[in-house]
């Protein structure tokens, strides 16, 4: 734990350095890189130690802190999330320096760097806190730092709107957390997680209220449909490395919270498992359908976060069902898959957002339909983006496949058992639909942005990103490939998390040996080697009798093909969007000579915004109460104090 504390201090110091040494830019950046990089490296050590199963004692601070003892600890669950935080946090912090360099004359860039460091530190505290007080404080610091980073380009009205939406959502989430801990803490000795765990059996209805509130509070943060409305707006508004950090790890705190609550409650009721599974299916399918309809690369990636949160929830739901129906293998595999997918998604989603950032940096547009042929100009970014795309789709031999495989195994395992949990096997169909639609969507992004020819001459003359922006992306791609090629390295750690959640080591899946993951590793390695060998052989002189010739693309006899005749992202996705038109939220405007589609968010446009304007209409009735004059305010304060006094006296008499 002391290493984690030192790591957090280093990261904060890095942020401080960026803030204070803002005059001498290069020195400030060097200090920032050194301190944040060092802090992230230092934090990875204890996280890995926790993941390989080392026991670390909790740290207790009892004196001088408000709200009872503050406890910090690191178990395998925290370790998995901490590792994701320091990896993605480090990559995004480094990427941010060259990415924002162009903004330096106009905006206070050093503040953004300091806020990124603060955000990473707050995230590290969230996953290691073992008491309500430090957890909530870190949660709020995280929320506010994210808000300030989202509104970095605050002169654009869309950005301010997205920031306000995020602020409302995140504070609704905090409010639900207050209610959750207030209900739970009523019976507890103090507000440490250990005390809450101890009094969990006394909660009424098996903790139904706590579990429902947890779904709202953490669901808002994670972006579960229909609570996701803030997510695409905020991710599209923030600078790309901030989007990467938010999509990669900040929204994962919602997943962390959900899993932590399950861990503390021991056995959730079956209805909660089914509810989470259903929410996962809904979020996954709708997220990817909405993503397919998008033209804006960052909004598209943001909707894919909703989709992947859905996949993770399917794993959590399967795990909870396994606990409720007493099917330990299903439970362990479900939670393990969910945790591993969380880490994997952190890796490849931040990769994709950083890649999108490089594209925006190079071309000056986020509109997919205006891009094209970037693969030849930005070869490194394009290759890394391709690896990230294949990983998020869940293709072997990459990391997304490994975690989805665990979740599939959990669902298929439920089919073998004899209880009502068998119905969960139907979710494999939903998971497959999500995967296939994601493949369609990333074929579209990869194909339209990086392959083919440049569509629009008005975009900047694209160039490869500076080295400070390519290597974080390439490093993340390397981690994705390593996890994908060697599942046996990570699956045992993920299973350890599953075992932690299903309470006790008496599991059919022993820690040391999951034979299937060893077999998968051997299989993946041989397939990958075979493919590489075949590729090399095929492209060597041995594989070809004759030298290949070059020519124009065959245009089926058309004499003058132009780049604008290529399939665009809209035309590519059109058949699928048409098939799902009832939920896709695409508005079409057509006239005699123009055709335009607008991909909105049906929940935001159809429900959240109308509801919001109703609330505002009601709030207007109370306008006369607030005149902004001092004398009135004083009267209100005095009246409030009087009411409280009367209540206290009355309550005292009643007792």
């Amino acid at each position, binding site marked *: 734990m002391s290493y984690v504390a030192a790591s957090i201090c280093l990261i904060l110091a890095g942020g401080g350095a960026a803030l204070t040494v803002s005059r001498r830019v290069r020195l400030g950046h060097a200090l920032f890189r050194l301190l944040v990089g060092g802090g992230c490296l230092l934090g990875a050590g204890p996280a890995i130690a926790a993941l390989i199963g080392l026991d670390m004692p909790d740290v207790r601070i009892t004196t001088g802190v408000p709200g009872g003892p503050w406890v910090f600890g690191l178990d395998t669950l925290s370790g998995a999330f901490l590792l994701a935080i320091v990896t993605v946090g480090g990559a995004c912090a480094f990427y941010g320096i060259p990415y924002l360099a162009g903004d330096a004359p106009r905006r206070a860039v050093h503040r953004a760097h300091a806020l990124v460091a603060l955000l990473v530190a707050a995230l590290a505290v969230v996953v290691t806190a073992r008491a309500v007080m430090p957890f909530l404080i870190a949660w709020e610091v995280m929320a506010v730092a994210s808000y300030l980073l989202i509104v970095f380009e605050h002169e654009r009205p869309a950005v301010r709107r997205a920031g306000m939406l995020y602020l409302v959502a995140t504070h609704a989430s905090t409010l639900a957390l207050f209610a959750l801990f207030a209900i739970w803490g009523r019976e507890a000795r103090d507000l440490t997680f250990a005390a809450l765990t101890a009094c969990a059996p006394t909660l009424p209805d098996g903790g139904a209220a706590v579990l429902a509130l947890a779904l709202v509070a953490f669901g808002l943060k994670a972006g579960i449909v229909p609570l996701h409305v803030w997510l695409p707006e905020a991710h599209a508004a923030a600078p790309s490395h901030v989007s990467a950090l938010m999509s990669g790890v900040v929204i994962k705190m919602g997943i962390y919270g959900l899993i932590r609550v399950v861990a503390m409650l021991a056995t959730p009721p079956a209805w909660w498992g089914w509810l989470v599974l259903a929410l996962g299916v809904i979020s996954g399918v709708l997220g990817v359908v909405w993503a397919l309809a998008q033209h804006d690369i960052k909004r598209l990636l943001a909707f894919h976060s909703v989709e992947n949160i859905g996949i993770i929830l399917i794993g959590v739901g399967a795990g909870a069902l396994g606990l409720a129906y007493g099917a330990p293998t299903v439970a362990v595999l479900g939670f393990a898959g969910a945790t591993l997918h969380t880490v994997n998604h952190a890796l490849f989603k931040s990769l994709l957002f950083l890649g999108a950032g490089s594209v925006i940096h190079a071309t000056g547009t986020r509109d997919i339909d205006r891009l*094209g042929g970037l*693969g030849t100009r930005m070869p490194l970014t394009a290759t890394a983006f*391709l690896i990230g795309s294949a990983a998020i789709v*869940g*293709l*072997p031999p990459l990391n997304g*496949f490994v975690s*989805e*495989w665990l979740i*599939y195994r959990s669902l*298929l395992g439920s*089919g*073998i058992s004899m209880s009502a949990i068998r*119905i969960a*096997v*139907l979710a*494999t*169909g*939903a*998971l*497959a*639909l999500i*995967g*296939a639609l994601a*493949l*369609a969507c990333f*074929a579209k992004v990869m*194909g339209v942005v990086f*392959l*083919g*020819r440049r569509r629009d001459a008005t975009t900047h003359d694209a160039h490869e990103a500076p080295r400070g922006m390519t290597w974080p992306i390439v490093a993340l791609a390397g981690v994705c490939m390593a996890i994908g090629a060697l599942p046996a390295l990570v699956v045992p750690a993920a299973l350890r998390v599953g075992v932690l959640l299903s309470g006790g080591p008496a599991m059919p899946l022993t820690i040391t040996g999951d*034979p*299937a993951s060893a077999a*998968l590793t*051997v*299989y993946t390695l*041989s*397939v990958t080697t075979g*493919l590489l060998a075949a*590729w090399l052989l*095929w492209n060597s002189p041995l594989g*070809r*009798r004759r030298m*290949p*010739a*070059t*020519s124009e*693309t*065959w245009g*089926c006899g058309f004499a003058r*093909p132009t*780049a604008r005749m*290529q*399939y665009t992202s809209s*035309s*590519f996705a*059109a*058949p*699928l969007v*048409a098939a799902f038109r009832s939920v896709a939220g695409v508005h079409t405007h057509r006239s005699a000579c123009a055709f335009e589609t607008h991909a909105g968010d049906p929940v935001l446009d159809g429900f959240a915004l109308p509801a919001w304007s109703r609330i505002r209409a009601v709030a207007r009735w109370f306008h006369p109460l607030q005149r902004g004059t001092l004398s009135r305010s004083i009267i209100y304060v005095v009246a409030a104090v009087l009411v409280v006094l009367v209540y206290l006296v009355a309550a005292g008499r009643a007792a």
Partner: protein
Amino acid sequence: MSVAHATALAVLLIVAPALPGIATKTRAVLTGRRGAPVLQLYYDLGKLVRKGSVYSVTTTWVFRTGPVVLLGSLVAAALLLPLDGRDAPAGFSGDLVAFAGLLALGRFALVLAGLDTGSSFEGMGASREVTFSSFAEPALFLCFAALVLATGDASLSGMLGAPVRVAWSHAAASMSLVGLSLFVLLLAENSRVPIDDPATHLELTMIHEVIVLDHSGPDLALILYGSALKLALFGALIVGVFLPRADLAAPAATGVLVLGLALVGVAVGVVESVMARVRLTQVPALITGGAVLALFGIILLLR
């Protein structure tokens, strides 16, 4: 990998290009023509390998990698099937996910190679391919889920191997429904009538053929052979469901596999002679119909 495994795999790899030939021949005979020889695809492959490739100036390494990844992933997927009727050379719990994942990898590589040419025709084909497979993949998993429920085993070696005979004895209706559903998927995934017509000559109506419009020479040979192998893989799934052969000796089991594949080829040919292809916009409904068959099978098993 034992000798029996290697033999069965080698037999599958060798007979695969005959399958489209059998289908075409059946169609020709039923429509009163003589038709191309059954072994036509072997001649085509031999001719293409000897030719040189032509690459568009627009294309990158993605285009050149696509065919290799397509064929490689299909061969890797073949390793997961219990071709000798007992177990697979590389089988593990949940290997059916890897099977589907490898098919998806091949599709991703092919679609990206198509988009790499910057041609609107290939973009069109790529768009149709990912659209229809978006419906086919959940259907495949529903078939797998039904087989898991029927056999109580979550690996391809189990659900297409020894437990299949027992599953037929207590869940014959579900097994037949799954087999039928797999046949619909075979037609969809391999671009046969009524989803796509491999004999069409108009680019605007093609699905599979139009993605590979710019591929030529040895690259095209890899893709054509890959298509035949994919047909054989789906055929092997169907044979695994309908013809449990774990009790036979290994050579006999492989023989039954070849016989079964030939029957599948004939069935495809019969379907092609008696049906017209449906409109492109109705293909999703057709595939969903196939998925519903598997879903009925699951419901019967969940009783």
